[in-house]
Each structure stands twice: as C-alpha cells, then as structure tokens.
C-alpha cells in the first residue's frame, strides 16, 4: 500500500480544481441505513440527482414501499409517502390523479412490487397511470432477513428455500417487467443496474427519460434496477456485484424493453 496522501484539498488544489461531483442537495444529511455496498442507496442518489438537475424538487412526490427502502423519505429531500407493503403504485395513482401536474414515482422492491403488490402494479400499469415506477430487483426479501422473492433465481438458497429455489415448489422467477411491457398503457420499460459507473450513468439517463415522458403524458414508465443484497445473499459487496453480473444478468438482461414510439 502506497503511503497515504493528503486527503483534503490543498490550498493550491482549491484554487485549481473545481467540484465535478458531489452529493446532490436533494438528498438530506441523514446517513443511509443500508448495509455496506447495497444498491438501494445508489439508486436513491441517482434519482435525486435527476430531480436536482431537472429542478423539479418542488413538484416531485415519491412513494416509498415496505422493504429495505422503507425509510427512503429520510434520505430523499422531497415530499414522500410511505405506502403499505405492496401498495405503492396504488398510492401513487391517487396522488397523481389528484395532483396531475406533479411528478410522481413509486419506489419498490421485488417482494413489494412482484409478490404482495402484483395486482396493484399490474393495474396501475394497465391504466397507464402517468407515473414512474422504480423497481429494485435484488431477488430476495432484504428487509425481513433474506427470504425467497418471486424473482429469486432457480437454485438460489434463501432462508425459505434452504436447498435452493425449485420449480416444483415455487415456480420460475417471475418476469414481471416483461409482463408489464406488454401493457399498452405503459410507455417506457427498461432494465438497468448500478454495479459499474457506466451502469449508473445509464440509469440516470433512464430516470431523466422517465420524468420527461411523464411530463409529456406518455403513460407509465417502468424502470427495473437489477440490484444486489450483500446481506441477504451472504456475500461481500464485491462478491455480490460479481454474482449479479454472472447470475442475475442472464435471467434479467439489462437494456430497454419498450420505448415510446
């Protein structure tokens, strides 16, 4: 290990350097409670960067789920509601219908969105509610300690699939995003991730588009983020991201699934 170098900016550096990246103002001072390396907080930050850049902090209302991101409103410096488990899109529907000129998004985990909230998710999208749904797919129930999710991969061990998920007991991992993409009311469907700088840049573009389309009344925008859960997966953050690329991507390949005409 090389000797440590000055960690603060020197006077000279202060003069010559300009800040090109800092935590956005749209995040509060509160430290994230997430486990080390968890993708949730990256997504939070990127989302808030976009809100900052589009200058829509005063017009954006977010809906937090029940899941590890239940406290999203502690971090995102915007008006938010915490929905009951699975119902974020129903809550978002009402907010948007009653405040149609606001930007509304629901932020949900895979248990929340694709298990208990399946009906609300599908009908919100089928109605083409003019909102953005951010879907964090980490293939596990993070918050409750690592149970199988509907998106858990086959063979994956979790506390409720101790010998690995099997088709016989639990069926295949559900491709909810692809089902959603079929619905005519849905304008934009994309699958993103946050395990590399480039992935983060792509996600940012996706969020920007999502808000743009919402402004243009194009219909529902659905953004899946294939994410990790180092704690639930019982891996280090680096292992988790590697595992994600090797195992999640083959089943949930990143990329646009539907774009507006």
């Amino acid at each position: 290990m090389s000797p440590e170098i000055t960690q603060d900016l020197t006077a000279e550096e202060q003069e010559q350097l300009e800040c090109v990246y800092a935590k956005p103002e749209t995040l509060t001072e509160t430290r994230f409670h997430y486990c080390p390396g968890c993708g949730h907080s990256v997504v939070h930050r990127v989302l808030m960067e976009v809100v900052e850049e589009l200058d829509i902090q005063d017009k954006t209302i977010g809906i937090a789920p029940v899941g590890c991101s239940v406290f999203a409103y502690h971090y995102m410096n915007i008006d938010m509601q915490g929905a009951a488990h699975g119902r974020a899109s129903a809550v978002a529907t009402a907010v948007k219908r009653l405040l149609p000129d606001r930007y509304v998004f629901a932020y949900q985990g895979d248990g929340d969105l694709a298990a208990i909230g399946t009906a609300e998710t599908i009908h919100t999208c089928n109605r083409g509610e003019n909102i953005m749904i951010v879907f964090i797919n980490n293939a596990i129930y993070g918050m409750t300690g690592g149970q199988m999710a509907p998106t858990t991969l086959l063979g994956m061990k979790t506390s409720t699939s101790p010998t690995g998920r099997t088709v016989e007991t639990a069926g295949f991992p559900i491709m909810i995003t692809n089902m959603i993409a079929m619905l005519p009311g849905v304008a934009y469907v994309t699958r993103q991730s946050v395990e590399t700088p480039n992935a983060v840049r792509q996600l940012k573009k996706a969020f920007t588009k999502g808000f743009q389309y919402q402004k243009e009344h194009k219909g529902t925008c659905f953004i899946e983020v294939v994410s990790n859960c180092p704690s639930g997966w019982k891996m280090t953050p680096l292992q988790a991201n590697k595992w994600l690329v090797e195992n999640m991507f083959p089943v949930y390949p990143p990329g646009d699934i539907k774009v507006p005409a």
Partner: protein
Amino acid sequence: MGDTRLMKGNEALAEAAIRAGCQGYFGYPITPQSEILEYLADEGRKRGMIVLQAESEVASINMVYGGAGAGARVMTSSSSPGISLMQEGISYIACAELPCLIVNVNRGGPGLGTIQPSQGDYFQSVKGGGHGDYRLIVLAPSSVQEMADFVYDAFDLADKYRTPVLILADGALGQMMEKVEFREYIPADHVPPKPWATTGKLKERARNFVTSLHMQPEQMEEVNKHLQAKYRTIAEHEVRYELVAADDAEYMIVAYGLAARVSHRAVQLARAEGIRVGLLRPITLWPYPSAVLQSIASRLQGVLVVEMNAGQMVEDVRLAVEGRAPVHFYGRMGGVIPGPDEVVRALRAIVHNEVAQAAEAH
C-alpha cells in the same frame, strides 16, 4: 322545496360527497352500495371529481391513503367483506393521521353471507378491525337525510382531527328512498389547512412525509400517546346521540341506524300499551354516548338493546350501565330486519318478567 330530492340512501350520500367538495373517490363494486360508485362515476365525474374504480378494496383504501396524504378530500365505500379487506389500510391511515371518509353499507355476514342489511360490523367498526390501538370516528345514520348530512359532518371531523371517519349504515339505509334536502355545504370554520400534505417540497419548508413507521418502540409509543390523547379529545367533544321519550322512562331501548327507526316505532306502540319506555339512539358509535346512559341507568328498570346482529353494541351498553340496571338484548342476524312488533314483544317479556319477579319478591 328547493334542493329536496327523492333518493336512495346511497345516492344521497354520493350527492352529499360531491357537494362537500370531495375531490377523489376510489372504490370497488359490491352490493348493497354500488350505487355510490355508480352515481359518482356519472354525476361526480361530470362535476369534476376524480372517480376511479379500483381493482380491489385493498387498492381502494391505499388510494385513499395516497389521496388524503396529498391533501385532497377523499373517500371510499364498500360493504362488509370489502371493508374487511381494508383493515390493514385503515390502520395505516389512522396511524398516519390522514383525514378521509370510509363508508360501510353493512350486509349480513360472516363470510360472503347475504346482501341484506345487517349491523354485524359494529365490533369491527368501533373496536378496530385492524391491528394496533386506533379508533375511527363512527357515524351511524338512520335515514336517507342523515346519509347525506353525515357526509358533511364526517369530512369536517376528519379534517379537524386528522383522522379517518367511518359512516356505518346497514344495507337498508343504502337501498331505501326518502326525501332528502341538501343544505348548502359550508365547511366548518375549525377545518384546518393541511400544511403537512405531500404536494411537492417548496424551498421555504422542510419536506413533508406521510408515514406510520417508527422503528424505535419508544418513538412508536409517543405516536400512540399522541393518538390516544387525540382520541380522548374527540371522546370529550364529539359524542352525538338522540334521546326519545326519556324523561319519564322506566325502560330504555338502545339502538342505532335502522334498528333505531324500528325501535322508535316500537316505543310508540309500547307507550300506547302503557309501558314507559324511551329510546337512546347513539349517533356516534365511537365515541360512544356512555355518559348519558350512565347518568340515567340507575333510575331504569331495564335496558333493551336492539341490534341487527348477535349482540355487539350491547357490550358498550353494559360497560356504561355497569350493573346499575339489567341489560337485555334482542337481535336478528344475517340480514334479517326485526319488525317493531317483535321489539315490543321483547320489551313486554322483560316488563312482565320483572313485574313477575317483583311480585315474587313480595
């Protein structure tokens, strides 16, 4: 006659909601209350209301949560099984202190039951069908006029106390027609603004968030203490009831909603027979008019509780009477409505039995 109309209770309630400035309705069809959704899908939409037929009652109540959280005046309605599905959502709404109106046009249960009128959901309404310590203000109309009037009241109470209000009406009140006069809606002046609503974070204020989650038990206990204090305030100020022929009464019937109408007639019939009986009609089922009952209990020879269920409100009556007078119960279940004659018979049996007992004692 101005704004007097002949309407079903369900329609009157819906019309009153429009007039009360309700901005959003979210609901799912179920007999015997679908007319509320149907009326609003037509009239409400025409008059600018957001009316959404949701995919389920679970979605409906969570839409109400969202709409109320966004600061709008919103409501839902359903009937018994549908209301059961809303219990989680109602508990959330109560805890997050969101003002809204929930209407239960009660049908016969349990299970799928019947679609006929019932009061089987009393316990669910007043003791909290959902988890945790919370209360709903529960208003029990007993005429089509009240189906309309209580909507104004309900919305104002909801806003005043930041609490969900339930209108509990049995199916008959939803389906019957009476004339109803719509007085102009003037929001009560105690109705406060909603600076807490999530309408978009302005620079000049901190972000608003609506939640029912508090990770630390001590924090959650504070939330509970706050709620309990609020409930005490409500209990002090918002008890509503009607007393009929109580002054010289030796017996009192206690009944609400349709059963109170039936019992009113029974009082008239029984008085004609010389039985000195009165009627207490609780209008707020929570907070319950315990004080009035308590104050007259010791001069009564008996109390007869009449319900369209197996005996639920009778517990609140017994809690108020606390042994000061014998409490009797007469009920019909599963969608059957008692007739005034049955109630008189039940009353007669009590009176005669007591006379007989008194005679025996001598």
